[in-house]
């Protein structure tokens, strides 16, 4: 293994161990924790998809529950009405989610910052209003119960099998998002975040890039919504609730929106905390509120941002007292300011 430094080897070993742990997880725990792990994976995918707009696109959306819910209702309506197999549901959901997200992107071309936040919220509420009042299609407030997984191959229909299916879907989607983010296209979206004026002066069509970021994000958010509804077996207006949009925003901030896997980590942390706290008390929402407050006050750059800062500082301390102290973390997640006209 010449050419690989020890640091790389350690990273490779850690990566392999993580993959092995994820694959073997159903053998290590009981069915309840496998269910929890499935949920973590799906919410993690949702958060990673969200970050294509938020962390990398620099647009704080408060409307992603719409795409997540569109994915969910695609399953609910497709399976209960027409017995669609997953191989039909999934493409339909992706197309619908991407189309809705493209509309969001187009509508948001002229707004920045807090206005973008409120506009995405209003758009998502309009779609949630459809889910609520188009009762003939959506079952209104009751939603669509008992959605069967019979269309899935029997090997991945229940419990452990469904976990592996989710793991596969999430792995493929996260890998695709990673490739997108590293591609020239994804990098130019980051460029728009950094300076829209410069990007457009260099000849990039920044509006189009913003719409693309929304579209990619919406498509993958819909996939997460599809899998979540297969997992839960029902879909209701709760899948479209704007608090889901807020939750995914907090996942991203808490984990670290400037890091690709930060939002995933945030989703895993909050979901894990919910399971753990719920064994002690019914007042989960109060605990969640405290988490939100702590995130806002102390973790504006996320857990990963903080960890990176701590590592840098430790290195500086080791370098000796003469070395300059580490600068305060710079990658705080701020609402992007309005670009100068």
């Amino acid at each position, binding site marked *: 293994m010449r050419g690989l430094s020890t640091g790389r080897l350690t990273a490779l070993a850690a990566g392999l161990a993580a993959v092995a742990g994820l694959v073997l997880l159903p053998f290590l725990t009981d069915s309840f924790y496998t269910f929890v792990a499935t949920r973590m994976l799906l919410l993690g995918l949702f958060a990673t998809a969200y970050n294509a707009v938020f962390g990398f696109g620099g647009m704080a959306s408060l409307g992603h529950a719409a795409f997540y819910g569109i994915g969910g209702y695609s399953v609910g309506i497709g399976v209960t009405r027409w017995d669609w197999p997953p191989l039909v549901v999934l493409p339909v959901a992706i197309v619908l989610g991407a189309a809705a997200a493209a509309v969001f992107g187009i509508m948001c071309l002229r*707004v920045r910052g807090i206005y973008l936040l409120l506009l995405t919220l209003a758009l998502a509420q309009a779609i949630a209003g459809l889910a609520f009042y188009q009762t003939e299609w959506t079952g209104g407030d009751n939603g669509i119960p008992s959605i069967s997984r019979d269309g899935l191959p029997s090997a991945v229909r229940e419990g452990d099998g469904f976990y592996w299916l989710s793991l596969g879907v999430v792995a493929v989607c996260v890998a695709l998002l990673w490739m997108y983010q590293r591609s020239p296209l994804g990098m130019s979206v980051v460029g728009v975040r950094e300076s829209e004026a410069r990007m457009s002066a260099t000849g990039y069509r920044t509006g189009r890039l913003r719409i693309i970021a929304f579209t990619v994000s919406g498509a993958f958010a819909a996939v997460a919504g599809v899998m979540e509804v297969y997992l839960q077996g029902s879909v209701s207006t709760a899948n479209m609730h704007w608090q889901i949009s807020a939750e995914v925003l907090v996942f991203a901030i808490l984990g670290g929106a400037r890091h690709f896997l930060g939002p995933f980590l945030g989703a895993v942390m909050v979901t894990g905390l919910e399971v753990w706290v719920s064994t002690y008390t019914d007042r989960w929402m109060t605990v969640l509120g405290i988490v939100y*407050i702590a995130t806002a006050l102390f973790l504006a750059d996320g857990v990963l941002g903080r960890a990176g800062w701590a590592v840098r500082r430790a290195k500086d301390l080791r370098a000796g007292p003469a070395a300059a102290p580490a600068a305060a973390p710079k990658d705080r997640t701020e609402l992007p300011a309005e670009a100068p006209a």
Partner: protein
Amino acid sequence: MLTWLTHSVNGLAYGSLLFLVASGLTITFGLMRTVNLAHGAFYLIGGYLAYDLATDGTDYWLALLAGVVAAAIGGMIVERAFLHRLAGRELPQIVLTLGVAYIIGDQILANYGGDPVAPPTPPGLEGPVTIGDWIFPKFRLVMIGVAIGLALVVGALLKYTPTGAKVRAAVDDEEIARAVGIRVPLVFLLVFGCGTGLAAFAGVWGGAFTSLAPESGFEVLLLALIVVVVGGLGSIGGALTAAFIVGLVDQYGKVWFPEWALFTLYASVAALLAVRPSGLFGKAVFR
């Protein structure tokens, strides 16, 4: 003909309720540029406290006052303890105030349960008024008057009094305002308290109008946010106009196309914001 009059006045009355909620937000969000998603939670605090006291036999106006004062103090505590640390950073403000709202909503759920409660209608305003053949609840008519009155009073306070001038100065240029001796942190603290106090007043009256439940705080919050943004941040007159329009659109939407009710409301707001981000009467671009 009379049905349409009833629908219209109903829409205006609902718009007035929205303005009562939004008036506090216009001050804290529109003027101070502090995003407070816990506004609906202070609405609940006022409503539930007044309900509790009034059903225990306290005088109605005393109960109302207690609710308003409690929410104002609660708001000032949140501002002083947390929010002032996040000045100018909207995203953390959103997360923080949402956390505060979750805690308050959850504690209300724990103490009062999830069933809707309604604070009593203010004494003297029960029952209907009859004008010719037309019958309408007196309380709702008075609400429209109160909303217009409140808009005039708040607008005049900001525009013509020395205190209002200080507030506007503190908002426009904090450093210069400090330099000329205005105690900006104190001004912000008091303004924020006024905002949450107004939310509580809206909670007591709005609760009598539509009844209260732990989740109704967020429902009114979303509509009030829309009113503030559609009206143009910081514009009291704009907020009043937007509140009446939203109230009427909501009412007629429910009557004409019930299956599209929320969609028509939010979609038209979204369309307006997409084309004119600064709202109907907003001039200053938000940073």
